[in-house]
């Protein structure tokens, strides 16, 4: 896609105040994205005009806040093709996954059951399952990847069997950017009677996601990685699962009737939102969704994709090894160099105002399995430009000159 024609990246960048205030080249969008002015303003407006707690106030501010909070739920639900009642606001993607792990799966496992995780999962979609498996004395099976670091469906089909209770899989790997064939994994898992939790932390800006089409049992993601504020995330769950899922946090707002000796709890999604929720962040997230819808997920994805392709060429040319060659890839690339440590590369680029990530990307065992301790990673979003990739190229050459 040509930047000059359909996609006016300068206009997009103008929506993001940080590029004015703190000029830099930001290539760490998989960690968190920057926020458009409309999202920041929604938060400011909330505190400056609408501030009140939700669920409880009879007075105008209170009921207006509750209404805004409810509307945000509908906005987010619409965005992924879900019903509002299927959307739980959490503290983040990590929190969403833990809720499924300890609110549902922990109560459902019996001897001989297994949980399946992809080898490349983020710690957030691995460690909770380890813990649940440990507590229930069941096996956590790791589905390893092909040499291209993609998922082999034939292997997955034999791996996920009638003993599998849950498959935990990322939509898009935050390490390699691989967009896994989750539709097929879900279809097969359901045939085997297993539920599937899709970690969509890296998904929502790289393609339009519809939970009905996907058929996922659960979908977890964070607001801050999709132009929204820090401090809130989402768990989508199919209603029949949410009904069975138990609360793991107890307190106000999630109850139906409390007596001294026992309590009964509200229906989903309320049952899972104990206490005062991150109201401003949730309202900000809805604004982020509005912004994404206005620009268009496809346009964002196409632009990011074009940058990813260009970056991949550049990295290869400069002698860096790009991690994996999956069939489909989101806007994320990990890469390494036999004689340049990723941290040094990140520091040297930082001195030129280029922010990239270096480390294990919260996937320690995956990197270790690949014989790596860390990689460098670039990830792109709607506001990145081809000129920034040229600067990256200059930075890489400078680093090589310095370190080799």
């Amino acid at each position, binding site marked *: 896609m040509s930047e000059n024609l359909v996609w006016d990246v300068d206009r997009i960048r103008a929506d993001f105040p940080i590029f004015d205030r703190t000029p830099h080249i930001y290539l760490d969008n998989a960690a968190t994205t920057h926020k458009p002015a409309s999202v920041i303003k929604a938060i400011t407006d909330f505190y400056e005009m609408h501030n009140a707690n939700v669920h409880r106030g009879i007075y105008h501010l209170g009921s207006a806040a*509750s*209404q805004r909070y409810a509307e945000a739920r509908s906005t987010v639900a619409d965005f992924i093709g879900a019903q509002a009642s299927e959307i739980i606001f959490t503290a983040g993607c990590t929190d969403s996954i833990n809720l499924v792990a300890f609110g549902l799966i922990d109560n459902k496992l019996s001897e001989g059951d297994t949980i399946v995780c992809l080898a490349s999962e983020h710690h957030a979609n691995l460690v909770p399952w380890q813990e649940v498996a440990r507590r229930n004395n069941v096996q956590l099976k790791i589905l390893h990847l092909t040499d291209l670091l993609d998922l082999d469906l034939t292997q997955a089909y034999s791996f996920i069997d009638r003993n599998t209770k849950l498959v935990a899989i990322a939509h898009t790997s935050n390490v390699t950017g691989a967009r896994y064939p989750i539709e097929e994994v879900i279809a097969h898992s359901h045939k085997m009677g297993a539920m599937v939790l899709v970690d969509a932390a890296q998904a929502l800006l790289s393609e339009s996601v519809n939970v009905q089409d996907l058929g996922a049992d659960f979908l977890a993601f964070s607001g801050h990685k999709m132009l929204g504020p820090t401090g809130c995330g989402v768990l989508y769950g199919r209603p029949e699962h949410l009904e069975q899922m138990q609360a793991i946090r107890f307190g106000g707002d999630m109850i139906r009737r409390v007596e001294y000796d026992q309590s009964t709890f509200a229906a989903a999604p309320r049952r899972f939102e104990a206490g005062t929720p991150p109201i401003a962040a949730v309202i900000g997230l809805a604004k982020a969704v509005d912004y994404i819808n206005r620009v268009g997920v496809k346009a964002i994805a196409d632009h990011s994709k074009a940058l990813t392709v260009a970056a991949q060429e550049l990295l290869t040319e400069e002698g860096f090894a790009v991690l994996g060659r999956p069939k489909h890839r989101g806007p994320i690339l990990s890469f390494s160099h036999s004689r340049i440590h990723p941290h040094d590369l990140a520091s040297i680029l930082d001195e030129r105002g280029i922010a990239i990530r270096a480390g294990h990307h919260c996937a320690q065992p995956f990197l270790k399995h690949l014989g790596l301790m860390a990689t460098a990673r670039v990830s792109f979003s709607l506001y990145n430009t081809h000129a920034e990739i040229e600067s990256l190229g200059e930075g890489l050459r400078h680093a090589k000159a310095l370190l080799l």
Partner: protein
Amino acid sequence: MSDLYHPLILKHSREPLHFHERKDAEIILDAYNPICGDDYKIYLDLVDDHLEALSFDGYGCAVSKASASLLAQKLGGKSRGEAHKQLQRFLEMVTGSGTMIDEDLAVFAMAKKYPGRITCVTLAWQALDEFLSQHA
């Protein structure tokens, strides 16, 4: 004058109609709002598919009490189908865009301006709606 506290609502809240317990009723419904604590029971018998001896008691605000009182007054003695139709029209008016022919009930239309109080208006009606929907 207050919009929400229409004279008719004040009258029904001060002197609610059909406001009495009936432990031997065939059907006893809970109309409970866990958020605010309003807590009514609705008593009725189903006789020849009609809602007979409809009454209520319990505790709640002027608005929920007046609304329950009007429910008992307006739907008592009605056939199941007719009652269900009327109460759905009422719920639509309060939460959506419907209008009401019954002048007394139309008084509750202004609840739309008070989103924090809609549950007070609908509490008893929703309980009866749930029952009638489940036993249609």
